[in-house]
């Protein structure tokens, strides 16, 4: 590229996002646990049009996951209780991670754990791999007894897990928060102070459905995590409140299926969005979201997505440069 010969179409708004050291072409991350490693959706969508894929959460030791049934459809959403099925970090690094090298979008590892040491150990080993562009700390999984979520619901544990992970990697560290708390903004500030580069807001909302014929919970695990359009208002408010409390970027998620849904999150203060269950509704959702956001910006004469981030949130202080 000689003499600035790169031509940038002046009518094409800039949708790129910077999250810590991670540069995303598009502001869309596929929610952890909802998109496999990307390969599964490759027949149905052009993966190069995604910002990135957040991989399924991995733990120190192998986990079989919960007994089926693991899913139940509920109004405008679903309950899941997968229970972190994964082969453990050893087998994962040895056999799986190399396959992620050729993904044409960012690949973000997700780490779950049951002790502060787990988070540090798994983050360190995972982040050391070139195939992994950034790490998301899943301190908010509601489907592993009371253990998993304790971290996102207890300020001290949230802080310790974040610090421990921060200490072992220079790659972008996203901490994923739980909505199942009295004050999510408080946990958000703690994670920011402990070194998170960004926050994923929100993980699923705890819920249960009961099979009235068999008189027992519909999920093998009893309770599960609610996702999909049903939780969108909960997630939008969480982003709105967290955006007032921190100065690091937010990856807003919970029930995003369309560009209008995504715009609610950007306007509330999210710098990027996560799409999980929305892919089950419409496998093309991620490209439709990007196309719709682009049109929205053009219609309003905006040249950069970041110019509308927080526009509906008067107390949003902006993302620290």
């Amino acid at each position: 590229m000689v003499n600035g010969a790169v031509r940038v179409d002046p009518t094409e708004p800039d949708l790129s996002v910077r999250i810590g050291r991670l540069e995303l072409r598009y502001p869309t991350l596929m929610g952890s646990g909802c998109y496999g490693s990307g390969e599964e959706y490759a027949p149905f969508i052009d993966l190069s049009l995604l910002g990135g894929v957040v991989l399924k959460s991995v733990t120190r030791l192998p986990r079989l996951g919960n007994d089926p049934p693991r899913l139940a459809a509920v109004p405008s959403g679903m309950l899941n209780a997968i229970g972190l099925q994964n082969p453990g970090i050893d087998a994962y690094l040895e056999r799986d991670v190399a396959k992620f090298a050729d993904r044409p979008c960012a690949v973000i590892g997700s780490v779950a754990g049951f002790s502060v040491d787990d988070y540090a150990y798994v983050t360190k080993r995972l982040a050391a791999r070139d195939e992994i562009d950034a790490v998301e700390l899943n301190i908010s999984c509601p489907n592993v007894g009371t253990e998993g979520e304790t971290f996102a619901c207890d300020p001290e544990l949230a802080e310790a897990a974040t610090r421990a992970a921060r200490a072992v990697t220079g790659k972008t560290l996203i901490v994923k928060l739980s909505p199942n708390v009295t004050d999510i903004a408080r946990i958000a500030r703690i994670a920011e102070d402990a070194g998170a580069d960004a926050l994923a807001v929100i993980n699923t909302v705890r819920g249960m459905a009961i099979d009235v014929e068999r008189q027992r919970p519909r999920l093998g695990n009893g309770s599960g995590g609610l996702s999909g359009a049903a939780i969108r208002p909960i997630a939008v408010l969480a982003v709105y409140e967290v955006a007032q409390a921190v100065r690091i970027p937010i990856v807003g998620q919970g029930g995003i299926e369309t560009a209008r849904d995504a715009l609610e999150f950007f306007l509330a203060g999210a710098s990027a969005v996560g799409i999980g269950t929305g892919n089950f509704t419409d496998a093309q959702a991620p490209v439709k979201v990007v196309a719709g956001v682009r049109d929205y910006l053009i219609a309003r004469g905006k040249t950069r997505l970041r110019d509308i981030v927080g526009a509906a949130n008067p107390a949003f202080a902006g993302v620290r440069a």
Partner: protein
Amino acid sequence: MPLAQTASSVHAAVVVDRREPAPGIVVLGLRVPSLEESVRPGQFAMVAMPSGEQAAVALAIYEAGAQHLSLMIVVVGTRTAALANLAIGERIEMLAPLGNGFEAETLGDDVALVAGGVGIASLLLLAAAVVRRGARACLYYGARAAGALVESDRFARLGIEVSNATDDGSRGYRGFVTELFAAEGRRHSGIAGCGPTPMLRRLAEVASQRRIPAQLSLEEPFGCGVGACWGCVIPHAADENGAPQNLIGATRNLPSLAVGHRRTTQRKDERFTYVRVCREGPVFWSEELRW
């Protein structure tokens, strides 16, 4: 013998035909211009809701031809209701064809097709494939009552013998289709079954007692339908590394898995792992399930 996978992709479809063979059961005929290759028996589609807001629904591909397929829908909840309500001319999208389907070649030359309720929808393409191979097939078909035994003429037209069972005895054998099958006693070379889980569990028992290999098409609540969410798993025989054993069809990019141990009714302590019904299945060898 792993089968080549017909490429799956997103398809737009238009409803061109709609009939209601019984109350609450609808067969939709769809024109799918982008569907060029044939689908394999036992494959399914993830059909998107016309209005969004809820996950797509897994439906067996009932019939398929060039640029055309049909679906049979039993209304059990809001999503099946929305699809059953589609009118001629309406458009829907789907991911198809998905899953590995049945392996007609390994079922021998005297195949028992065993269907419970809407399970019948997974077996018509298989029946045609079995007949095309020159093999014999019988259909054992059970439902609540005579009125719900739909579409068996489609099988009869292929020259397949049909035996019925109904819970209330209103047609054929009174009782479960698995008992009809067990009572009948014929030594088939292979079984292909599809229906509610309790029926399939019982069918697995009968098949095992009679030592007839059986391919069962399972049903679990689905999320993605494409192998991404690990929501639809069932326990399946695995080796010491967690690699599932003896799957039907190709396993593409199976990630490594944790291995567990479990007592089953038939075996004391068996290694198993959780495999995805949507991706490693939906059809499995009955002997390999660790229910």
